[in-house]
């Protein structure tokens, strides 16, 4: 097997597996930049995955082939809401961020299995019917010799979205007024406060965004 063939087997799989990691890490970036360490991302991923799987199973009849897209959105929203638990404790109640994050992870792990048992009366759910297949080739780009077949041939939409989101995040954090405020709040909250930025609100937003990314990361994992 030549080196190129080896790459052909490794890279597409790598893209598939990296999608949840990319998205969740982006979530970490948002809250970290605002000065909140989000150890709870693992738990947020679990909750996002749970929400989207349950949605996928329950509503697969209603939405048919679009179910997995809606499930993704449900995972995002639920992840964001779950992350607000961290924001309430860490921002409003001045709790230790690391410990709260660890508590969220434990809560998610226990809570997820608990709810699966409550809903389905067993330790794991059924296999979902609608999922992201890996049979998408991006037009034009996949025709590029050598790298086209490597990076753009038959990859799932989730990976494409993940990589696009990385660019979007970079733009938001470094090129917009919102991003500037976000970084200011993280680097010097008092100075940001003096300049009229609502530190608490910014941190809530950042943690919420972080949770949405985490939820998306979790939703993608299925």
């Amino acid at each position, binding site marked *: 097997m030549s080196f190129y063939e080896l790459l052909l087997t490794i890279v597409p799989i790598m893209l598939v597996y990296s999608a949840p990691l990319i998205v969740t890490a982006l979530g970490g970036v948002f809250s970290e930049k605002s000065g909140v360490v989000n150890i709870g991302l693992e738990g947020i991923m679990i909750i996002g995955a749970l929400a989207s799987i349950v949605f996928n199973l329950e509503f697969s009849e209603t939405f048919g082939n679009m179910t997995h897209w809606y499930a993704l959105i449900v995972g995002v929203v639920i992840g964001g809401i779950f992350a607000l638990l961290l924001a309430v404790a860490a921002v409003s109640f001045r*709790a230790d961020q690391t410990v709260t994050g660890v508590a969220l*992870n434990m*809560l998610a792990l226990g809570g997820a299995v608990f709810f699966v048992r*409550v809903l389905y009366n067993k330790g794991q759910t059924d296999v979902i019917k609608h999922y992201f297949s890996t049979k998408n080739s991006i037009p034009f780009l996949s025709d590029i010799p050598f790298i086209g077949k490597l990076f753009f041939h038959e990859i799932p939409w989730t990976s494409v979205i993940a990589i696009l989101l990385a660019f979007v995040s970079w733009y938001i954090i470094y090129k917009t007024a919102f991003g500037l405020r976000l970084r200011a709040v993280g680097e010097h909250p008092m100075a940001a406060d003096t300049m009229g930025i609502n530190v608490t609100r910014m941190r809530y937003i950042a943690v919420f965004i972080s949770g949405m990314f985490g939820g998306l990361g979790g939703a993608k994992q299925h």
Partner: protein
Amino acid sequence: MNSTLKSILVPIVAILLGFLVGGIIMILCGYDAILGYQSLFNGIFSNSYFMGESIVKITPLILSGLAVAFAFRTGLFNIGVEGQFIVGWTAAVYVGTHFEGLSKVVHLPLAILAAAVGGALWALLPGILKAYLRVHEVVVTIMMNYIALHVTNWFIQEKMAAGGGTNTSERVFQTASLSWKQFSDWTAFSRLHWGILVALIAALIYWFILEKSKVGYELRSVGFNHHASQYAGMNVSKNIILAMLISGAFAGVAGAMEGLGTFQYAAVKGGFTGVGFTGIATAFIGANTALGVVLASFLFGGLQFGSLNMPYNSQVPTELVAVVIALIIYFIASNYSIRTLLDKIFTKGAK
């Protein structure tokens, strides 16, 4: 109200809140909350076997809690207790399954010591990196957890497995075992062993080192303020490494409790045991004091074991207790709100 009373009341309020929210979750999901908690309580206290097994669960938690608490008190966050615990377990069983013919007076302390040294050595690297290169110990210790898990798995599989495709080591020799026949007779054949005594002695040692010795004073001082300690003539780097070593030793002995007492062998593990992570919670709830950690371990260990009884008597899934424990940690972390609440209640009463 005075601060001592408040520091006792805050965890109690947090624990009650945790149970309250847990109860609400049970009711919302259509279970009988009273029956649920009743079966949890029965799962701990209803007979001597349950009580013995609860103490078995509590023993390593005390030690891992002490390990985390020791690091906390010296300004370090040792998330690597899980890894040091696994290394300690493996080291204890390795010594326990070798050196046949030693007397118990030599063999048992030797095996526990091996576990302490194993755990301490596993904590040494993060300590050195922190002391000399200012590498954050949280990241390093998390990584060391994974390294510990897979290295010990390899070691157990290749060097200790009994052969014939098994994934477990042989049982430790009687001379290295913590179990005592009398205990299992009293508690209807539970796995209760001498480890609880070791854990309580360790709590005493913990208290003595931190509160009563010069070494402990220096360690705490470095934890409070690096610069002031350095100015006062203390060797900051040395103290950071020493703190990690002692913390790791506690974690290692926690592993010995499992290796020499509860299981009496080491097995290839599919994942983390969770003892080290629960230790973070017990240290936190016990406010990093010896007595606090012991009490918190009794609470968590009891809850974890008692939860196994819940599905049989009340159909409530075991995981509810994991949720309750997480909630308790969450509420203790946000103790600022509880403190404000208590202040409000008690100032009103004073008027």
